[in-house]
Structure formats: structure tokens, C-alpha cells
């Protein structure tokens, strides 16, 4: 019986975030107008990106600045597979001979997205072999180098990518409903990974690399696995992006990288709940400020904020979170059933009260001051 209850309590980790996303999307799908629906669809694509980033960065503890380059790879690969054959001749007149069969086919969007995901994962595993040997912020900067390298390649390899020009002609098949389905799938993948043996091993590495290595965990291998899975999910976000908007190499560069990292940091980098909560909160916030930039009416009041307020606000919000609550809004906690949270809070209040009555309060001795910033 108690095992069943534990399982039920544990299931909140998956059901609460998945349910929150479904609730928001379904409410919008049923009651909101077309413009709002397409905003929610974009937010869902961002959610997939953030959940994908979380799979690697949350579990490994290494912030990656390079994940959006896999989104670019996903978008370009799925575009190459799904643009109608007639238009392909115009988009890619100088396509390399070896790959010219790609110009003769048009693949179903779902199949193309999966293929793009696998392709990005393969690239992630290949570049992961050197990158994943690094740790900490050195690894972060190496992933930033990866972002730059892939962006330079995409912007200049005109025969394959169309350069910095916009790619048009991809069938706009992404709807609110199928994007929601993919987002839920991404959440399930992230959940299954983090409770799997692999996920637990990588989390052990995150907490204590020496101890993890000592019990026989292959650090590099576990990181590569997470990096590849993350690239797969992120690339599918890229495919959905391609099925929604025209895009170019600039769509997946520093701006989107910053956005995804900001969302993850604000929500809380170390839990799935943080990733989902962060996307929900930040996308709501940015949507409101974007409205305000074009002029918003609240009753008789009209608010117009200058363009760029959204970005500045997002940056300041992220700074505040880092200073005040470095583990993010979720604070590294996974989601729990709301009534359990209430019960826990009540229990804590009771123990606190008992402690103060029995004068059990202890003074904390802070450790001697060490070198700031050194790990």
C-alpha cells in the first residue's frame, strides 16, 4: 500500500508539469483567437527547446550555450526533406552532387522531423566526444564555440543552407494541437531519461564527479548520451519551428540561445518542473510586455513601452533570480501534488513552533571565509 502511495506521489513529477502545459494549451485552443493560438504554439516550441536543453544541462550541471545550433540543424534538415520537389530546384540550385537525391524526394513532415532529430543527435555524439571531456564553465565556453562554428558554417555554406537568406516553402503543418503533442512527448522523454539508470548516473556525476568515477560511472559516456538525447529533442523543436515560420541562420543564434538559458535559469535549471515553470512564466511575461510595446489598453489606461523593453526586462529578471534565488523559481525541486506541499508546509510550521517553545533553536556557525568563487 505504501509503495503504491509513493508511486502515486512520485508520479506528480511527470503529471503536474505535463498537466500544466496541457491545461494552458487546451484552454487557449478552445477559447482564444487565432493570434493567441499561434503565440501559444510558439511558446510550446520554446518549451521543447528548453526541455531539450534541460535534458543535458539540468542533469549534467553544465550549462550549454550550443544547444540552439542543434535546433538550427533540425530546422534546416527538416526543411530540406519537406519542401516540395518543384521548389527545391530554386532554393538549392548548387546542392552538392552526392546529396542530390535529397532534392528528388519530399518526405512526410513527421518522418522528416524524426530524421532531423536523429541527424542532429548523431552530430551531437560526434562533437560530444571532444566536448564532453571538459567540465564546468570550460565546457560551457566550448559549447559557445560550437554555437559560433555551426552558425558560421550555416551562414556561409550557401549551396546547402541557402546562406543567411530566409528559407521559405516549408509546408506550415504545425498546429497548436500537434505541437502540444510533441511538447508533451518531450516532457515524457525528459522524465523517463532522468529516472532511468543513465539519468541517475549523470546526476551522480553532477553532484560529485570523483565519487561517481570511483563507483565506475563513465563520465564522458553519460554526458555524451545526454547531449545526444538533448540534441534530438532540440532538433525536433527546430523542425517544428520550420513548420511554423520562415527562418534563416540568424533565427537560431545568440538571441534564442540567451532566451532558452534565461528561461531555464529563471525556472530552475536542476528540475524538469523548473524548465516547464520557467517557460510558462517567462513566455507569459514576454507576451505581456510585447503587447505593451505595441500599445496596451488596461481600462482607460494606454501603456506604450519602447521596443526592446521585453529583452531588457528578461535580462533584469534573470539577474534578479541569480542574485536572490540562484537555484531558480523551482529551486531544484520537482513538482509535487499541491495538497502534499500544503501538508508539508503545515508540518514544518508545527516543528518550528515546537522548536521555539522548547528553546531548541541552535545558532548556525558559518564556515570560515574562503576564496570567493573558487569551487
Amino acid at each position, binding site marked *: 500500500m505504501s509503495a503504491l502511495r509513493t508511486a502515486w506521489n512520485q508520479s506528480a513529477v511527470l503529471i503536474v508539469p505535463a498537466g500544466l502545459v496541457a491545461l494552458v494549451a487546451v484552454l487557449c485552443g478552445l477559447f482564444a483567437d487565432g493570434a493567441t493560438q499561434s503565440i501559444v504554439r510558439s511558446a510550446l516550441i520554446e518549451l521543447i527547446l528548453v526541455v531539450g536543453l534541460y535534458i543535458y544541462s539540468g542533469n549534467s550541471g553544465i550549462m550549454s550555450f550550443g544547444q540552439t545550433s542543434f535546433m538550427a540543424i533540425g530546422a534546416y534538415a527538416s526543411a530540406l526533406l519537406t519542401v516540395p520537389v518543384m521548389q527545391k530546384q530554386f532554393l538549392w540550385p548548387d546542392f552538392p552532387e552526392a546529396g542530390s537525391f535529397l532534392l528528388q524526394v519530399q518526405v512526410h513532415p513527421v518522418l522528416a522531423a524524426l530524421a532531423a532529430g536523429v541527424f542532429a543527435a548523431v552530430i551531437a555524439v560526434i562533437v560530444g566526444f571532444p566536448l564532453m571531456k571538459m567540465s564546468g564553465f570550460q565546457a560551457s565556453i*566550448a559549447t559557445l564555440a560550437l554555437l559560433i*562554428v555551426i552558425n558560421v558554417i550555416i551562414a556561409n555554406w550557401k549551396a546547402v543552407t541557402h546562406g543567411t537568406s530566409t528559407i521559405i516553402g516549408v509546408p506550415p503543418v504545425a498546429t497548436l494541437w500537434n505541437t502540444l503533442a510533441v511538447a508533451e512527448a518531450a516532457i515524457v522523454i525528459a522524465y523517463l531519461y532522468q529516472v532511468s539508470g543513465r539519468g541517475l548516473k549523470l546526476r551522480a556525476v553532477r553532484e560529485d564527479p570523483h565519487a561517481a568515477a570511483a563507483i565506475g560511472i563513465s563520465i564522458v559516456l553519460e554526458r555524451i548520451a545526454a547531449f545526444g538525447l538533448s540534441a534530438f529533442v532540440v532538433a525536433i523543436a527546430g523542425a517544428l519551428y520550420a513548420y511554423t515560420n520562415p527562418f534563416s541562420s540568424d533565427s537560431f543564434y545568440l538571441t534564442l540561445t540567451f532566451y532558452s538559458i534565461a528561461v531555464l535559469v529563471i525556472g530552475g535549471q536542476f528540475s524538469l518542473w523548473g524548465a516547464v515553470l520557467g517557460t510558462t512564466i517567462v513566455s507569459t511575461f514576454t507576451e505581456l510586455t510585447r503587447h505593451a510595446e505595441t500599445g496596451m489598453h488596461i481600462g482607460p489606461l494606454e501603456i506604450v513601452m519602447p521596443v*526592446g523593453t521585453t*529583452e531588457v526586462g528578461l535580462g533584469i529578471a*534573470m539577474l534578479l533570480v541569480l542574485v536572490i534565488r540562484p537555484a531558480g523559481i523551482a529551486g531544484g525541486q520537482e513538482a509535487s501534488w499541491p495538497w502534499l506541499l500544503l501538508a508539508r508546509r503545515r508540518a514544518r510550521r508545527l516543528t518550528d513552533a515546537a522548536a521555539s517553545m522548547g528553546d531548541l533553536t541552535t545558532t548556525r556557525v558559518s564556515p570560515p571565509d574562503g576564496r570567493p*568563487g573558487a569551487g
Partner: protein
Amino acid sequence: MITAISYLIDAISLGSLDALIALGIGVVFGLMGLVNFAYGDIITLGAYTLVGTIAALSFPFAAGILVLVVVTVAIALVMERVAFRPVREADPTTMLITSFALSYTLQNLEILVLGARAKFVALPPFFSSFTTLGPLQIPNLSLFVIGMTVVLLLGLRFFLKRTSLGVQMSAAAADFAMARLLGVRANRVIAIAFGISGLFAAAASFALVAQLGQVNPTLSVLPVLIGFAGVIIGGLGSLAGATLGGFALGFLTTILQAVLPASLSQFRDAVLFTLVIAFLLVRPQGLLPGRSSVERV
């Protein structure tokens, strides 16, 4: 031969700029383990200051430079106090992300206030003309940047070795806790490190503005990324390493520019950063590792 020498001068001049930027980042990193993304924004804001004072307010050149130095040092100090002091005890990754957030905020603030379009400026004609040396024509700007870098490097060395504050700073970089026990004031040495990085940012601002004749909000993004790479391949926490790393990248960039065939030349930065990653694998501790180099697992 002439071509080789002019390439060499290009390489030294570009290397000087990269070394200036790498040092500005390295001096703070060595002390507190912070890789400061927002360093680029100090440079950009400095560049706007220079353009604003000279072009818009028509200050004399020397006054513009003076204001530039005051502004970059002030920005660096305020940045330390407001954004980085609260996260000083956090791990390096958190500090890195904090500086990333700060950089993003400042860059968008620049767009918000100053607009995304480039602003142009004309510097004294000296900087756009050449010195003729026999068959050799050397851009004055290159000579000036090289000279400025040498002066700053010597000045930094003098400061670190011969002044009380400089010795305190070196001591703190070697062992912060021990230095504090011996009476070194943490806030003061860190503020001074930021002040120095502000000074180097002023030099980099000037060099970039003089090179391009204009300023825009993304002016310093690529130079600072190259500066990061310089700090890392030089050896984290070592100032000599940062200098060497900066010069190495300047040389590498010039060599790539010269040897890459025309069809591949636009991939120069991709090749450069790939080489940086490859180098990190072969020699993760960098060229001249400092004492605080990071433990690798």
C-alpha cells in the same frame, strides 16, 4: 618578403588587440574565477562614449579619450558592485551565467536607448594614414595599437610587481583565503582588478572604433569571444598566459586569412574556434597554466 613583413605587422597588431581584451578578462578571472561576458559591453559602451564625445559633442580628441577611460573604469566598478559582488561566493558557472545575463541586458539597453543602427565617427587623420618605411607602408593605427599594448603591458607588470596594491593583488590571485588572513582587503583588490579591466577595455574600445570608424551594439561580440578563447588557451588564471593566448589567436587569425583559399575564407572564424576546441583537448591547462587552473574530471 614585403608581403610577409606586412602580414607580420598585421598579426602583431591584431594580436595586441586580442591580448588587450584577453588581459581585461584574465585579470578579473585570475582573482575571482569570473569569466566576464559583459566585458564586451564595457568596450561597446566605451566606444559609444568615444563616438558621442568626439562626433556629437565635438570634444577635442584627447578629451574624448580621457572621458572614455573614466567611463569604462566607472562602468567596470559599478558592474562589480551591483552585479558580481552578490554572486561572488557562487560557483564559476553561476557567475558565468550572471555575466551573460548582464551582457544581454546591457546590449538590449543599448539598442533601446541608442538604436541598433551604427554611429559613425572621424578620428584624427593620423590614424587612417600610413608610415612609409622604404618599400613598406605601415598603417599608423597598427603601430599605435602595438605601442599602446606594450605600454599597458609594462604598466601592468610594474603595478603588479612594484606597488603595494599590486603585490596584494598578485597574492590574492595566488591564494585568496591566505591573502585575506594576512590583511588583504577582498573588496579592494577585486575592485582594483575591475578598474584595470576597465582601463584595458578603454584601450580596446579605441582600437575597435579606430579600425571600423563606427560603433554598433554588437561591435564587441566577436572580439570578446576571441578574447575568451585567448584567456582559455593561454592558461586560466595566468596573466602572462592571457597575453600569450591573445597574441597566438591574433597570429592564427592572420595566418588563416592568408592561407585559406578564397572559397573557404568566410569560414575563418569556424576554423579558428574549431582549432581552439581541439587545442583545449590536447592541452586543457593552456599554454602557461596559472595556479588556479581548473581541475579537470
